[in-house]
């Protein structure tokens, strides 16, 4: 198998999981850029890709996305004086939207808690894979997931009782 054939085979395996990973975390333009950069890294390291190419590739995409976001923050700092922020949304703006309600609750978690929940629920990674993506032990990933789920349930419950949200039937704990 040539290296080009190998890249194509790996891409068939990982391109959709990586695309979806990025689509869940950033805007479409950034997702496109980071996907391209991630594939360049795959090509450069075609001889080093492990058997679990999906977790490895998502790990690469995660680092590339962090770089892209850091660059974006620099840009925002440069133009900070020119930007007028929209007023922050209130809970009432989306209290009737279950999807946004859940995403908002995730957004209130610490970044690593949110990430471990997204990796398991959205990206459907196993704990072994989550550990690989985050560069931690499986035990640490397991503990992190357990705590993150508890915090998310707390957040969901807090919003539900705090503003009278009643759109989620599974809310009772």
């Amino acid at each position: 198998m040539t290296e080009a054939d190998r890249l194509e085979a790996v891409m068939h395996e990982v391109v959709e999981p990586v695309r979806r990973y990025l689509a869940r975390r950033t805007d479409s333009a950034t997702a496109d850029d980071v996907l391209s950069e991630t594939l360049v890294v795959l090509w450069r390291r075609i001889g080093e890709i492990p058997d679990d190419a999906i977790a490895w590739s998502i790990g690469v995409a995660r680092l590339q996305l962090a770089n892209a976001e850091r660059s974006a923050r620099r840009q925002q700092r440069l133009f900070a004086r020119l930007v007028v922020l929209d007023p922050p949304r209130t809970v009432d703006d989306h209290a009737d939207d279950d999807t946004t309600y859940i995403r908002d609750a995730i957004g209130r978690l610490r970044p690593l808690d949110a990430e471990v929940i997204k990796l398991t629920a959205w990206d459907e990674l196993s704990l072994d894979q989550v550990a690989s993506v985050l560069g931690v032990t499986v035990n640490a990933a397991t503990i992190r997931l357990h705590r993150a789920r508890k915090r998310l349930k707390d957040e969901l419950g807090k919003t539900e009782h705090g503003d009278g949200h009643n759109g989620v039937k599974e809310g009772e704990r």
Partner: protein
Amino acid sequence: MNDEELERMMRRADPAASLPPLTEYRFDRLKEAAMSEQTITPSPARKSRKPLVWSIVGGLAAVGAAAVVVATMGLGQPAGPTVALVSPGGADPAGTSLKCMETTPELVATGTLAFAGTVSSIEDGTVTLDVTEQFAGDPVGAVTTPQGSPEISDGASPVYELGEKYLVTSDGKTIFSCGLSAPETPELRAIYDEAFGK
């Protein structure tokens, strides 16, 4: 709410649920773009110590009225580089009179490949830096770069010394010198820490 119910709720809120699959055309374009990438092959951190091959061909990044003198990386180019440096009263390929800007976190942070590295060898004018800490960019294990010239005082690349530790910022092809990449000092470390949010 148990964990399974939480997972079901999460999946209903999946932002990528309606994302259509890539078309075959787009897949092929992405593959071609990845394979046409002509940049260097970084060695992965702590896996391989094969260095990048850097050579100075000289370059200039002008920021406002000042300049950052750079060493540009060329894939597989032989040693024997020429250095185009800009200093007041010196040769000035840009045709303007430029000088180094003050080293600030903002300038350092423009680098997309930045790291701390220790000089592990200097052979035939080529310096090898083992990367000990990475601030930004695709992980690399080591880089090589041509030795700086002690005869050039303003804006030049550092004159590397064996065993010394350096802080280096670059765009992945170009080392930013002019004081942005230099031997590690507490002052420069503080600038790097601020630049990269440490």
